């Protein structure tokens, strides 16, 4: 039975916004531990709600805008985000990730453990492929993700 969902969010034609999808595609080509499912959910925010119920644990990978060097990645839980900050008001989509998580919790479907892996983008303009900065750091970012997956399985 699948217990860990690794979910990539993003748009591969908005440059570094596609980092979550790129990581999912890279992992698909490699050996991953049993019980791990890899998902590319694209940019549809609320759809993630229907995937969450299938897992005990999830890692959600997305580009994040916060202070720091492009290519830096960090793991955090939804509780660590300032909910009254910009995340609630500047979502570009139908419903943002935090709303989906909150709804999932209210429905009693939220996985026991939710980890967000955020990667700071350099470039979010229209275009295919990652920026050179992220490309350079990609092996390291992938390694960190693989370590986290092992930790959780």
């Amino acid at each position: 039975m699948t217990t860990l969902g690794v979910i990539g969010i993003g748009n591969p034609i908005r440059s570094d916004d596609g980092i979550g999808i790129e990581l999912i595609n890279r992992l698909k080509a490699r050996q991953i531990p049993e019980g791990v499912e890899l998902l590319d959910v694209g940019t549809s925010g609320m759809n993630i709600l229907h995937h969450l119920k299938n897992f005990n644990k999830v890692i959600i990978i997305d580009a994040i805008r916060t202070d720091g060097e492009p290519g830096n990645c960090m793991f955090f839980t939804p509780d660590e985000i300032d909910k009254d900050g910009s995340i609630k008001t500047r979502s570009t989509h139908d419903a943002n990730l935090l709303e989906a998580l909150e709804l999932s919790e209210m429905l009693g479907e939220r996985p026991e453990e939710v980890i967000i892996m955020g990667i700071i983008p350099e470039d979010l303009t229209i275009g295919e492929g990652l920026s050179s900065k992220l490309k350079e750091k990609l092996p390291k970012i992938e390694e960190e993700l693989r370590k986290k997956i092992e930790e959780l399985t």
Partner: protein
Amino acid sequence: MSNNVNIDVEYLTRVEGHGNIKVNANNGNIEKCEWQVIETPRFFESMVVDHSWKELHHITSRICGICSIGHTLASLRATEDALDINISHQDELLRKLILHAENMQSHILHVGYLALPDLMGTGSVLPLASSHPEELKTVIRLHRLSNEMSALIGGRTTHPQRLIPGGFSKIPTEKELIELREKLKNATNDLTACADLLEATADGFPEFQRETEFISLTSDDEYAFYDGIISSTDTGTYPVSDYLNVTNEFVVDQSTAKFAKNNRESYMVGALARLNNNYDQLAPMAKGVAERFNLKPVNHNPFMNNVAQLIEVVHNVRDSIKIIDVLLGEGLEPQDDYYEPKVKVKQGRGIGAVEVPRGILFHDYTYNEDGTCTAANCVIPTNQNHANIQKDMEKLAPSILDKPQDEIKLNLEMLVRAYDPCISCSAHHLDVEFVE
């Protein structure tokens, strides 16, 4: 009159993308009334140039996270038109099925998660989880069903993989279709519950009428989504190849998105436009819901687009059952997985027109003899609606100036949300501020 009003909504919420509402009134006179679209232009038409006919539908599917299936289908139809590729009757039925799934998915999301909070006065879907848990679960069940349906036919819920020029790389099994039919049949109670819920709250929609033109696809055979010709409530029908003469996109100062017009200053596309053009072809159960809301063609109240969306969801479910019955009745023609239709590449131009949740969508591609794209044009539903939103706002704002400012603001926001605009679905990054 001493009505001084200053409405300044930056980044309207519960719509896709970024738009502003600006209304100023001085002594009861409107000085400014603008629907501003402030998205960065997206340049998809340039991005697909130099790509192969095999890739275009994957790229354009990423235009939108909500209408990714619709963009995929409009793209495939344009490519198939340009390269003279035919698809089988079975593949056509499967495509109609997945388009129903997407329409349901999008409409339920809009009516349930985005519009209902206005009618219930909760400002967001989250409070509904405690105030109306059963109703919310109904909405979520229907949304989930449409997602499962998209995944079954397209390979995943969004950005489908199995739809390719000439057909499908993998098709569902008869057993899977039988199971899906069962689930769709079981959704009847949920649909009725949703109609009850909307009916109980529908008096929250402002009374408003403004005569306008409605444009959608139409077909002799069915309530058109996948196939048809262009139809206007003002001027009759046009072949799809005439789309540029119907859409007439133009640039305005207040918006980075283009506006469009045909017979009047503006026109409307989407569920209400389809319903106004094709009402008689709705499934009987869907027509029953329309009658409950007294929605008859031609309806000129844009707020009724929310109701039209729910009516279409009922139609989508009922017509999907009918399509599965036909597929199973004819017997599913087996096909190997990873199937690749044989395609003879040629030079040419093709146009695909498909009804997606927010209205009629056109993709127009030109290919060279190698099957490489040399030119592309996409006319997106929300762009066709911007001018109509502006004109509605110009009529609505002066008529509600005597209301409290908060109510004026809410009514104007509801007007824009009724169109379910998808201003930009092309980026998804989180803005994160950590708790200090």
